[in-house]
């Protein structure tokens, strides 16, 4: 380990990559819509979201993905490199939902570490599963 971050050889399959808990708000969604130039009302307009049958504006697909990526990037540290990342959107979330992001190392191949990730809500439903590969720095480099 270098400080609190793993280096090549430090991790093995089954290790946890930590946990992240986020509760997006209407402000989060509004800012994310603006930053991504996304005018879809489903993400910021509660009365409009109700017309589509939702209890609130929806957390953006790419915000779910960003939370998953944040967990693994934060765990691997600034000298690691994310080489592959994918996720799927399974269940919607709205402001106030408590989203818990967790991950586990599934395979290690030299400096490359595969991780399985999941974002679940306060009801235990999986909102977004994810998978990542990070390249860890050499030991003592």
């Amino acid at each position: 380990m270098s400080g609190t971050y793993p280096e090549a050889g430090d991790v093995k399959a089954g290790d946890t990559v930590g946990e992240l808990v986020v509760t997006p708000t209407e402000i989060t969604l509004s800012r994310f819509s603006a930053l991504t130039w996304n005018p879809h009302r489903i993400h910021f307009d509660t009365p409009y979201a109700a017309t589509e049958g939702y209890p609130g504006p929806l957390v953006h697909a790419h915000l779910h993905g960003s939370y998953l990526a944040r967990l693994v990037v934060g765990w691997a540290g600034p000298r690691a490199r994310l080489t592959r990342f994918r996720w799927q959107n399974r269940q919607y979330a709205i402001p106030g939902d408590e989203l818990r992001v967790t991950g586990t190392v599934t395979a290690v191949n030299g400096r490359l570490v595969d991780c399985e990730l999941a974002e679940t809500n306060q009801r235990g439903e999986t909102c977004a599963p994810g998978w990542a590969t990070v390249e860890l720095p050499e030991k003592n480099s």
Partner: protein
Amino acid sequence: MTAAIDEAYERALAGVGKAQEIRIGVLDERALQRFSLVVGHTDAAHQDPAAAAELGYDGLLAAPLYLSAVLGWDTGPAESDLLADGNSTTPLGDVDVAGLRLMGGGQDLTFHEPVVAGLDVTMHAEVTAVTRKEGRSGPLLVLEVHRRYVDAGDGRLLVECHESFLAR
């Protein structure tokens, strides 16, 4: 609903395979910082150019999803030209999905080179497939989009993204 989906399917099929080249331009440091802040990358490499330089990067590091999360890179249509739900009539370039509710299904990203502030980037985008499916709540379309983000100067591949959208 079925007829509307069938019509949209035919329209969308006509746009499959048409490649688009979109100039993103030079990545702005402040825009990268803001995106990172909102999604929670508050570490030095994503917020402090000097810290990023110490780590060996040529500029402030972008959050992994920065390029692939931005929906539009051009000025975009006037508000009067948007659909009632706020969407553009052509959020997927030449593929016409106007009138359908579009939801992101997820992405598969490969990162070839670090994406940093100051890079001049071009995006190559193409809808590669449209499939009609029967979902639990009725018919839907699944659209597959392939994007390549390259250095506008030397053509180096930076990020590759496969994304799926569900249209109902």
